[in-house]
């Protein structure tokens, strides 16, 4: 009996090499990681073997394609970083919940718990996508939970939030993504990351002047194809607004920003505070 246990442990241990090279299926990986958690010697071995495999990797180094660095730097500029603590995922969204002044304390607690567990249940790519989209998606989630939106409709909201996150991630990592910035009349700077291949752009702004509650910033696409409202910008947080996705870009479009009633307008009713040729 004892012998068998030792034999199976040894067998488990031989996986160290395969594990260090990721030559392991997902279930095996999980099983081995459980084994590692209780075997310090194995963990040390894996660490040292990883150093060796890292050298195999650096040996394959190749010059980066042109523009790749710029695209990632632009994406990083609008990508939220994980805080170091374990509360990494739940904490920032809990903060969003607190910002929602209309929600009662108990509703907030529920929101925090629900959003937190939903986030934890996400697979890793889902988390990345969500984090990429940042506040916008999180806000939808929190609002959906805080105000107790009925189940079906909440699912729809979640789907929408996720779809929008994915769209944003797609633009940020697009092959031809370029970043442009421009000043906003009345204060603030707009930053866009645009992909012509995806016919879309991601808009963010810093330092926009706070508008009265009855008013809001509305984003427009204006060009030969007509004037199309894109979205009302969400309220800024820590001076940052967005990200907001604008899709369906056409040849000759400009991106514009105006001050409109909070419910939004069908056409701009005030002078443009931003006019960027795309």
């Amino acid at each position, binding site marked *: 009996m004892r012998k068998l246990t030792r034999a199976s442990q040894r067998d488990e241990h031989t996986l160290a090499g395969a594990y260090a090279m990721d030559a392991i299926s997902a279930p095996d990986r999980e099983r081995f990681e459980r084994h590692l958690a209780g075997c310090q010697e194995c963990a040390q071995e894996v660490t040292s073997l990883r150093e060796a495999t890292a050298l195999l990797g*650096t040996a*394959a180094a190749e010059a980066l394609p042109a523009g790749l660095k710029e695209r990632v730097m632009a994406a990083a500029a609008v990508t939220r970083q994980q805080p170091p603590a374990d509360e990494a995922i739940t904490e920032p969204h809990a903060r969003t919940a607190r910002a929602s002044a209309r929600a009662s304390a108990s509703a907030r607690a529920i929101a925090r718990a629900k959003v937190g567990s939903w986030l934890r249940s996400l697979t890793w790519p889902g988390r990345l996508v969500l984090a990429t989209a940042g506040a916008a998606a999180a806000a939808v989630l929190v609002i959906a939970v805080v105000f107790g939106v009925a189940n079906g409709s909440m699912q729809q909201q979640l789907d929408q939030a996720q779809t929008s996150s994915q769209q944003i991630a797609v633009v*940020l990592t697009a092959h031809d993504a370029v970043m442009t910035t421009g000043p906003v009349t009345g204060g603030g700077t707009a930053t866009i990351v645009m992909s012509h291949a995806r016919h879309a752009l991601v808009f963010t702004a810093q330092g926009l002047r706070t508008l009265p509650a009855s008013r809001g910033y509305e984003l427009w696409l204006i060009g030969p194809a007509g004037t199309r409202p894109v979205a009302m910008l969400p309220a800024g947080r820590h001076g940052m607004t967005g990200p907001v996705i604008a899709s369906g870009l056409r040849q000759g479009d400009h991106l514009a920003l105006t001050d409109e009633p909070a419910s939004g307008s069908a056409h701009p009713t005030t002078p443009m505070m931003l006019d960027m040729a795309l």
Partner: protein
Amino acid sequence: MTQAANLGGLLLRITIVTQYWPGEAVPRDPGDARSPGPPSGLAAQIALVARGDAAAFDAVFEQIGPSVFGVVKRVIRDPAQSEEVTQEVLLEVWRSASKFDAGRGSATAWVMMLAHRRAVDRVRSVQAEAERERRVATADIPFDEVIEAVESSLDRERVRRCLNSLTEVQRESVTLAYYRGYTYGQVASLLGVPTGTVKTRMRDALIRLRDCLGVAE
């Protein structure tokens, strides 16, 4: 057995015919990978990245970006997809820099793990179905392309020498697993040997590589 002998011949031939590989003059961090002890240049930069320092992220890019792209492309092959995954990996370095723990290995090893794992995951999710059938049907893998990647790199004399110190079967296992992204089960099926044998080979090979490369234990 016959298969192993054939592979041996092929490996030998490829070792002799050294090929030019485009884009090989690549700067890399020489010290970091071998010294998991004190924080090296890259580890220090990553600590700054965790605080949102864009200049440090730029420096990380310069140091490790080419290695990330190189290993991702080696596994994925398709240039467009490789570029995409490289971007995802580097964006993840930005995002999760605070998760890097210098006590659990070097910064190079951490980034390369993110890169390799993601490349492998991409290949496996895309090819899961097709691959399962193909790996049985085609025993004639282009080993040359795998080996070429290492054999032809200028700056990598040490890695090449250490790979050469492995036995034939150990080297096969390492190159198939690391540069092709196969699981040990797939490698076993390709080579027609029991999985237990492949697992042992992989571990023995990496231990030998580690000792040859002078990676601190």
